[in-house]
């Protein structure tokens, strides 16, 4: 084998998968995983671990994979990562662990994410339970939201012995893992639901259909329902729009709405009662992972799909793998392009999107080169659906109904980076609700570190 290259991973054929919602990546076999593991140099001072937000002991678990001791590998990962089957699939490894891999200097980095996924899937298939032993300490913690930050926080708190209840606004648990990330990237029944079932098995309780801030407030949870501490992991759920003309036309959706219909409500399935618009030609505005998810969903529902992104391909914030997969499946990338108006027919339905061409100027505050409009470059793309994927901001439902909870100018909850402590005693927060839209692994990491913060707080109370 060529030690410079990753062991190729099995994937569904692009032409086939562009028409189904089954998972694209099929994962390594035992043999492939063990072979890939031999590529790890087992560095004494592993940079990969530094690149991991939750510091998984990567060389150690890979060493166990090399030996074929997958059970042990799972135990090692589980010490640091509550949701390995999910992180192995959705972490931006190229900018984290794999980005720092010494192998990557001359050749391709070790496929750390794929190995993590292999180990987690192996354990799940074997029905292996995460090792845990805990005595109940009689204290109650409420966890708000059931996305990655909350699941990770709840998983650790229950291990410390707390009586943990997750409050979820929707009718199913999982947060963005459920409504945001599509089935073909993160299978719901086989991965997300199993990870959540594992938490339930560990003793975490989940109360669905409960909107904290509406159904019950944090004050009530603490004063009337006896919760000793609260973790807010409610995410960043409010979709942004551009504020351009025609944006309220029929056929313009936020990526959140489009993906929620398809993922949570399963509108892609003909047996689902929830409708989803099927378009001939779709424009997805934005270049992040969510934009890729929306584009690839629209493609599977049968349309020609264009990604419209105002910077160049190098600046696309999406994971490389997602961009690669989207291209393979036939998504067309209209880069250095920015919409200025959405055009409609007499019935108020979208029939085109007017755009301008852009060029890159000097770097802006984000360090990326600022896109500048090229004068007189207006042109129209005929589309019958537009999906806006411009990012999200935190929901004010909780901050506006909780006394003493400070938010910053971006409406994010102010919380200590290490402990997650907010300005309100006994209330902690982490994930997108604090940082604004980020990644699953960062949210998970914040959830875990807040679990330590909560534990310290309650031990000293």
């Amino acid at each position: 084998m060529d030690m410079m290259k990753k062991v190729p991973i099995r994937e569904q054929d692009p032409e086939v998968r562009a028409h189904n919602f089954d998972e694209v990546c099929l994962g390594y076999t035992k043999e492939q995983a063990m072979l890939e593991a031999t590529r790890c140099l087992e560095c004494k001072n592993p940079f990969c671990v530094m690149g991991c937000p939750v510091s998984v002991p990567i060389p150690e678990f890979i060493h166990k994979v090399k030996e074929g001791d997958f059970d042990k590998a799972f135990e090692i990962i589980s010490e640091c990562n509550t949701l390995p089957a999910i992180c192995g699939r959705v972490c931006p490894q190229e900018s984290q662990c794999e980005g720092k891999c010494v192998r990557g200097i001359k050749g391709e980095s070790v496929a750390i994410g794929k190995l993590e996924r292999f180990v987690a899937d192996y354990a799940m298939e074997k029905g292996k339970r995460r090792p845990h032993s805990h005595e109940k300490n009689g204290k109650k913690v409420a966890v708000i939201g059931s996305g990655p930050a909350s699941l990770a926080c709840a998983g650790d708190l229950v291990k410390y012995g707390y009586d943990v209840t997750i409050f979820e606004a929707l009718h199913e648990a999982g947060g963005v893992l459920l409504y945001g990330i599509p089935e073909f990237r993160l299978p719901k029944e086989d991965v997300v639901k199993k990870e959540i079932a594992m938490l339930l098995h560990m003793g975490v309780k989940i109360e669905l259909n409960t909107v904290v801030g509406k159904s019950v407030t944090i004050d009530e949870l603490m004063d009337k329902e006896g919760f000793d501490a609260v973790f807010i992991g409610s995410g960043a759920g409010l979709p942004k729009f551009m504020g351009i003309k025609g944006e309220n036309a029929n056929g313009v959706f936020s990526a959140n709405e489009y993906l929620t219909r398809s993922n949570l409500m399963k509108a892609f399935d003909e047996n689902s009662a929830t409708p989803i618009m099927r378009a001939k030609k779709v424009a997805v505005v934005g270049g992040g992972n969510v934009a890729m998810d929306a584009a690839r969903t629209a493609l599977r529902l049968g349309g020609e799909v264009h990604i419209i992104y105002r910077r160049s391909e190098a600046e696309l914030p999406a994971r490389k793998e997602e961009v690669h997969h989207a291209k393979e499946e036939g998504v067309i990338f209209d880069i250095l392009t920015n919409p200025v108006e959405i055009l409609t027919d007499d019935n108020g339905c979208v029939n085109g999107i007017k755009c301008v061409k852009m060029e890159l100027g000097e770097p802006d505050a984000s360090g990326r080169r600022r896109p500048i409009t090229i004068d007189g470059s207006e042109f129209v793309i005929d589309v019958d659906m537009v999906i806006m994927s411009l990012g999200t901001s935190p929901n004010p439902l909780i901050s506006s109904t909780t006394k003493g909870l400070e938010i910053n100018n971006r409406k994010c909850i102010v919380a200590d980076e290490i402990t997650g402590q907010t300005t309100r005693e006994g209330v902690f927060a982490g994930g997108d609700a604090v940082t604004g839209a980020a990644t699953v692994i960062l949210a998970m990491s914040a959830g875990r570190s807040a679990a330590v913060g909560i534990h310290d707080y309650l031990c000293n109370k």
Partner: protein
Amino acid sequence: MYEILNAQKLTDDIYSFVVKAQRVASSCLPGQFVIVRSHENAERIPLTICDYDRENSTITLVFQVVGAGSLRLSRLNTGDFLHDVVGPLGCESELCNTDISELKNKNILFVAGGVGTAPVFPQVKWLKEHGVDCDVIVGAKTKDMLIMEDQMKKYATNLYITTDDGSYGRQGLVTKVIEDLVNIEGKHYDMCIAIGPMIMMKFCCITTKALSIPTTVSLNPIMVDGTGMCGACRVTVGGEVKFACVDGPEFDGHLVDFDEAMIRQNIYKTEEGRAYLKEKEGDTHHGGCGHCGGEQ
């Protein structure tokens, strides 16, 4: 799961459910709504809360069959369970946050159209319980489609019923009653709350604007999550985009872009209509929906 303690058919296509929903019943206020799913895999349907009983932890939902989802919902009976009920969602009526003595000095008019009578009811009841008088106009197409007359009578200071065809009460649209009350019967109103079909609210607002009566409407656009996440319910109010689920559902009616709201409400009409006919007629459906080609 949320038990239906009492299911009733109010008219040919309007139903009332009393549902056990502890968290909603203990925290809801007039003007708020819930989202329900009748079964697993069913649609999420937003429904206004028509009444609530904190002691018994129940809420009353009144809804009209308009599509496949509500048809399926209507087939549930007393003793059955709703798969999901979430809420209360949206902001409470502005009335709840207004000083009571201020409200007592105001002449308040409610205008309810069809199933819109249901969301008007808790506000009228709330005012009465706080010692505030109000007049209520209830409009229906015909006598058989009128709902909640007795309950409304109990709490409204004056109740004016009108039917489009004159089969009961006055004859004509609610807008005519507003004009008659103000222009002919010498009534004066400081504020109006109009709830009903979008088209009714639009014309109510045109009427009240001409009469200089500030008017609040409650919008019922398409929604998915109801917590501000999807943006499906966006409406333009005074040139600004608002999300009805978190910023509303009540807005200043004189600022709402009703034409846009009506277009947006119809987005899934064909798809929804198709599903409705399939559900209603099942194997007996042989065309007429304009989509399946069965008529040929």
